[in-house]
């Protein structure tokens, strides 16, 4: 490290040279298209392209003046934040538990089983869930057999967001678990050995070795997923919701879809996209800074 610094940037030119193609490609494909943001401030006409008539903030004003749009922001945040939180807690817990398992074979089997739902598309999953969660579905059958009242998982505005949160976590936690398990295998075994010599219990080992060493991965995964906080899961919700639960289940993406992105309403679509990107960018930067300041964790 010290040596490199002394030699200065000049000796590193090969590395910079290797960086150039990537930087150029990113610039061309990620930065130049940013110009397209102006669509959000225009009354866009495909035939006229970027020189369409100027609309200023009209598209944003229109969107936020819609009485049924504002509630979608809250719904989105509610569903997304819970998905995010449980999407960290559940896989970490499962990964730690799996890691403690003695039988390697069982561990693999569990790992595979919980990973499988992750590969099914929401279109298929929604059909399955509708059958399982319906009033005459399996879950309500079990509830009734236990003498409990049926729950209207998909039709009740109170329950619906939670159905979305839990089914999404259930579908996705296999992936997170695999990532955390991979991180766990990277932990130096000698740490556990010396802890054992000092007489640490299993729980103390988890608390003092596993979790702290897993923290950087957890923070990385969380910050990365924060960028998605305004994506509450279009595929999932669109395939499962109905007018009866729009009150709590209608999110930004599903609303905008109904607003008619299909009917080539580019400007409003671009306005929503921009709004979401700006909010997400702010969240990612703040969380990154906070993680650094409060806990001293840095990703880069």
């Amino acid at each position, binding site marked *: 490290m010290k040596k490199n610094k002394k030699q200065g940037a000049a000796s590193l030119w090969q590395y910079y040279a290797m960086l150039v193609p990537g930087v150029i490609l990113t610039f061309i494909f990620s930065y130049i298209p940013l110009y397209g943001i102006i669509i959000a401030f225009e009354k866009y006409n*495909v*035939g006229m392209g970027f020189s369409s008539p100027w609309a200023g903030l009209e598209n944003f004003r229109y969107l936020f003046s819609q*009485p049924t749009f504002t509630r979608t922001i809250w719904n989105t945040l509610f569903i997304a934040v819970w998905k995010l939180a449980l999407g960290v807690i559940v896989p970490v817990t499962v990964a730690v538990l799996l890691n403690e398992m003695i039988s390697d074979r069982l561990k693999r089997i569990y790992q595979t089983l919980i990973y499988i739902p992750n590969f099914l598309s929401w279109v298929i999953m929604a059909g399955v869930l509708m059958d399982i969660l319906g009033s005459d579905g399996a879950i309500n059958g079990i509830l009734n057999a236990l003498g409990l009242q049926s729950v209207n998982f998909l039709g009740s505005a109170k329950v619906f967001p939670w159905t979305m949160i839990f089914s999404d976590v259930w579908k996705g936690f296999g992936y997170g678990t695999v990532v955390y398990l991979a991180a766990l295998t990277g932990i130096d075994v000698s740490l556990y050995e010396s802890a054992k010599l000092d007489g640490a219990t299993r729980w103390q080992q988890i608390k003092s070795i596993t979790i702290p060493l897993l923290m950087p991965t957890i923070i990385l995964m969380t910050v990365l997923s924060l960028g998605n906080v305004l994506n509450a899961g279009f595929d999932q919700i669109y395939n499962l919701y109905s007018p*009866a639960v729009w009150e709590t289940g209608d999110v930004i993406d599903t609303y905008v879809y*109904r607003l008619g992105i299909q009917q080539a309403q580019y400007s409003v679509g671009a306005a929503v996209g921009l709004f979401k990107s700006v909010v997400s960018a702010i969240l990612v930067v703040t969380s990154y800074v906070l993680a650094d300041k409060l806990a001293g964790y840095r990703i880069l």
Partner: protein
Amino acid sequence: MRRSYIKTAAVVMAGAMMLNLTGCMTKPSGSSSQVSGHVEAPEDIWAPYPEKVTITTMGEENSGTEFQNGDDYQNNPWYRAYKERFNINLQNKWISNDYSTKLNLAIADKDIADVFYVDSARLTTLYEAGMIMNLDEVFDKYASDVLKKYREENKDTWDTGCFDGSLYGMAQMSYGIIDQFQYIWIRQDWMKECGFDAPKTMDDVIEIATTFAKKYGGYGLAECQTLENFYRLALSWGAHPGIWVEQDDGTLGYGTVQPEMKEALAQYAEWYKEGIINPNFATLDWDKMAQGMINGECGVIPFAQWFGYNPLPDLIKNQGPEAIFYPYEIPTQDGSPIMGSVTFNNNGYVVISKDCQNPEAVMKIVNFYVYTVNDAVGKESNEYLSELHSFNYPNVVRGTRIINPMNDYNQYIQVKDAYDRWAAGEDVDTSDLGTNVSKFESCVNWNTSQDPNGVGDWLQQGNDPSAYGIAKKYVDEEQYVKDAKWGPDTATLQAAGSTLNDILVEGFTKIILGEQPIDYFDEVVQQWYTAGGEKATQEINETYGK
């Protein structure tokens, strides 16, 4: 023959690729579509060009067409007919299964074909961008008399393709208003078993529905989350949901927010409370509702004329041919004749690129389609016409055809007459039926072999009662209210997408489920007005009011 065709195709493709390459480097100004320059058109609009004229088009892939003998989108009876009759080579620029996206790209790229079809939003886009031709002159000179008659008789529809009084998009029309009416479909084996006659009042309908549910399980009335069946039944109260109607004070208002809807809604909520309507409707999408019908959960459903096409064939496969449903008129509350709702229905607009060198050729193609469904019957051989019109070949010329708006009406009269004669034991000469033979044949197939694929046609046209039989009376006696918005959506409605109607569906659902009292209706309507309904109403009155 085949090999040489492939060779030509390869050469054409190589050429196209080179064109593309140069296209990347230097953007051609305007359209690059001109393969041939302007060729003077002959005086007689039916005469062929003296030399070969090529015009380009862009088309939509459709799964319905059953291509015969190696035909494809470029080589089929229609395209061959254009060549033989007019010396016109219609060249596909592209055929896409995602027409609308591909079309947007083509417009953005300023690389459009000579002729193609668009919806009303893109018609405006193209007009504002100055990319399409003013058709006044070419229509005047080269449109056939029948086509001109279409325009005269459907002036209000054709006017929607005009800007500042000039024609820019030729309305492609639809198969006619006869297909827009609503019915109550009732299961026949149960109806016979319980000894019910055709319902005369809404109470009869409910009695039939509840009896069915008691006796055979399931629920009385089918419904799904869009409330479409409720909207159909609302006609009984004189409401016209979904269309714009003239109110007592002469101004136009939206049918779904009128007081008649409140009455209908109050009754519907009552029925839901009594357990007559499917208790799970609020979470069911249309497919799930249809699945319930197919499983035999319900014997009464308010529905459109196409119930016999979907889901009835599957229902019959599942429940047997006796489980057939018949359509009945929706009874009104006061016993007066029911008034249906008729909306603006136009399949699109044929537009011609501003850079097209031979717009007359387009008119010839359009004229020809119109000719085949009108005066060609009798003049041309039956084989010739049926070659053009069977196997869904007309879909291939989706972009350049204009439909006869009396199509379904005339078809019903012909098919019904032929079928009745056949049923009475007469010999029917199918050559008189022209393009309608297949409808007649599937009616016969249902009658002779209970072929579920024929039941749709039979219930639409052959049977007594049939959906079109009832609808013909509505059309003849003008038993309908025409949507005052006879044209595309206004700006506010376009911007709102479905969200304005969504407010109403959401609120009505709450009322039906009993989560809100009936007076919540007024609040929902208020929400609708605030969200843009007020502005929309104002626009509609300005654009379409008298």
